[in-house]
């Protein structure tokens, strides 16, 4: 068997069911070996999409996503996808073909140092120098990708290594599925956390993406039930507690809800659970939750006290920690204050004007509960509207590019998410800017008849940038106009995908019905108000209490 065959065998041993990729010269031996395996390969139309699809699959399934690309331009096209997975801590293994080892370092055709290029955006990486190491490297790569704080791992495979023949008897046995133990939290810290909880009168849970990573949603919910503490979430914490739970105050931060931000600013105890005090969350850090002591539960020691000193750091398995912290608290007054705010600031969805109101569209879409709904987002205003106005009952169902904020993520991520959940309704919510960044993946939807529904909110602009120019650059609009957009419905039809355009509020219900009932892929082109902004908004560099709100009538 040759190296390529060993690679595929090792992937099979890891339980890999699906690979997203794109072939080319240096990775041809691997594509040759694919002919003989039952592992499914999905041909995307751009390597960036291969990485995003692998990430979407990983996020929706909890498994490790796998993607392939060839050397040179194939490999560099993967980089954005690796960075996205790195910043959002998603387990992935990427295999790149490389020129033959003797040619490496000679500026050979399609040679780039992808190992060096990708170093800052991978959790770890390997160059396979000896075919005998390959099966071990694959096993190690999977173990690294999924353990601790998960992340992407790159394996660069030179062509001659992929072609090298070895006797199977010379190889170490295929291993697979090893797992790194998460440390147990220290009893002393847990006891201190209990004391702080018992003493607090105004506690808030601040839940982040670490809850999903630790698979600790259930433990978080039990903790919230036991203590009755109100919860705010980050973008990646959405769904960690059910969005319609009475104690859920929604997302905090730059585009957070008023009730979330004001409650955090007032609280006397902040229980950070798998969250990292990102600048989009805290606003001006020095004025974030100014009266609060902090308990920080996290699996990653390097996040604790990185930006905000924790009065009680609890490093280790979040599930164990949460289970230990159950107690009855006497915080009725505080809870009623939080809930009164929630009622006061609830969105009414009866916006003035005739345009389709995107927040209302999304709220209606996520309220129809007859099918298990996953939403993948692109980046911009529409992404924030999803975070604000859709309710999720599990963190894996809301797939959004948080750390990197990658326009073009949504459509390929939805391809991956749909393969992870063939029975679910998977919707991509995109913008007229973002969709063009990976529009070629409509061809992938068509080829495999992937029933992803693509909603394009068309505001004829790079809306989020336009909003900032309006508010913070004296309405000096610079390169944000997209009024000459293609006709997205016609474009979809050219790919062989049915499409509808929604111009009128009266047509929203019908469009949502069609999203629910259409058996195959569908593009829904929704014209919205070009001047609509995302509210509320904490201006950059300001405290979260200084939210701007809608002013225009």
């Amino acid at each position, binding site marked *: 068997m040759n190296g390529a065959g060993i690679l595929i065998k090792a992937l099979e041993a890891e339980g890999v069911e699906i690979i997203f990729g794109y072939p080319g010269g240096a990775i041809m031996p691997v594509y040759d070996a694919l002919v003989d395996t039952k592992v499914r390969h999905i041909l995307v139309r751009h390597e960036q999409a291969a990485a995003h699809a692998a990430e979407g699959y990983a996020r929706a399934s909890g498994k490790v996503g796998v993607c392939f690309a060839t050397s040179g331009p194939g490999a560099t096209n993967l980089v954005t996808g690796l960075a996205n997975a790195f910043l959002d801590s998603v387990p992935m293994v990427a295999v790149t073909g490389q020129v033959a080892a003797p040619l490496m370092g000679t500026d050979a055709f399609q040679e780039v140092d992808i190992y*060096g290029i990708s170093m800052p955006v991978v959790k770890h990486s390997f160059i396979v120098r000896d075919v005998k190491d390959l099966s071990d490297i694959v096993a190690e790569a999977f173990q690294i990708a999924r353990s601790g704080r998960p992340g992407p791992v790159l394996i660069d495979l030179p062509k001659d290594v992929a072609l090298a023949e070895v006797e199977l008897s010379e190889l170490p046995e295929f291993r697979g599925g090893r797992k790194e133990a998460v440390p147990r939290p220290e009893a002393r810290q847990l006891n201190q956390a209990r004391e702080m909880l018992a003493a607090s009168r105004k506690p808030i849970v601040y839940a982040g993406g670490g809850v999903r990573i630790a698979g600790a949603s259930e433990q978080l919910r039990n903790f919230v039930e036991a203590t009755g503490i109100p919860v705010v979430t980050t973008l990646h914490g959405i769904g960690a507690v059910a969005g319609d739970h009475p104690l859920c105050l929604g997302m905090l931060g730059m585009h957070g809800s008023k009730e979330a931000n004001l409650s955090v600013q007032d609280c006397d105890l902040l229980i950070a659970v798998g969250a990292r005090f990102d600048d989009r969350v805290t606003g001006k850090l020095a004025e974030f939750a100014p009266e609060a002591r902090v308990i920080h539960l996290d699996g990653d020691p390097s996040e604790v006290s990185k930006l905000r000193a924790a009065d009680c750091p609890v490093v280790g398995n979040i599930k164990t920690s949460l289970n230990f912290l159950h107690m009855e608290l006497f915080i009725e007054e505080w809870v009623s204050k939080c809930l009164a705010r929630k009622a006061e600031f609830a969105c009414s969805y009866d916006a003035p004007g005739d345009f389709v109101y995107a927040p209302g569209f999304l709220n209606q879409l996520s309220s129809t509960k007859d099918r298990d709904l996953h939403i993948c987002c692109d980046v911009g205003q529409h992404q924030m509207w999803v975070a604000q106005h859709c309710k999720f009952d599990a963190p894996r169902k809301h797939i959004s590019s948080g750390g990197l904020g990658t326009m073009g993520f949504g459509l390929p991520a939805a391809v991956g998410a749909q393969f992870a959940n063939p029975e679910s309704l998977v919707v991509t919510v995109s913008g007229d800017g973002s969709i063009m960044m990976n529009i070629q993946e409509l061809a992938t939807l068509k080829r495999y008849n992937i029933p992803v529904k693509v909603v394009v909110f068309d505001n004829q602009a790079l809306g989020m940038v336009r909003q900032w120019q309006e508010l913070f650059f004296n309405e000096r609009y610079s390169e944000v106009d997209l009024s000459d957009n293609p006709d997205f419905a016609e474009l979809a039809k050219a790919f062989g995908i049915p499409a509808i355009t929604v111009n009128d509020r009266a047509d929203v219900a019908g469009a949502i019905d069609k999203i629910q009932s259409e058996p195959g892929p569908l593009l829904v082109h929704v014209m919205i108000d070009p001047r609509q902004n995302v509210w509320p908004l904490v201006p950059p560099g300001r405290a979260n209490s200084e939210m701007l709100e809608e002013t225009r009538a």
Partner: protein
Amino acid sequence: MRYTFDISMKNSEGALERVLGRLRQRSFSLCSLKADSLESGKEMVARVTVESERSAEYAMKQIDKLYDVARVVLNEVVEEAKQDVSAK
């Protein structure tokens, strides 16, 4: 602040590069470096002096996260760096 770290790592391809890259990217600028691969060839030890406004703990946690790194020890802290900066 000027910190000197003793770092021991697996002597794998690019291990030292990762350490230096991580330090640079996290705003620790390099002052001096000495690195040797040990006789076995499997381990590399490096003594790295860096300068930064950030804490030693921050650098250590970031370095410790690297998969090839076995151990990071803070060997020395010198405060003189601040005066250096103002003198320039």
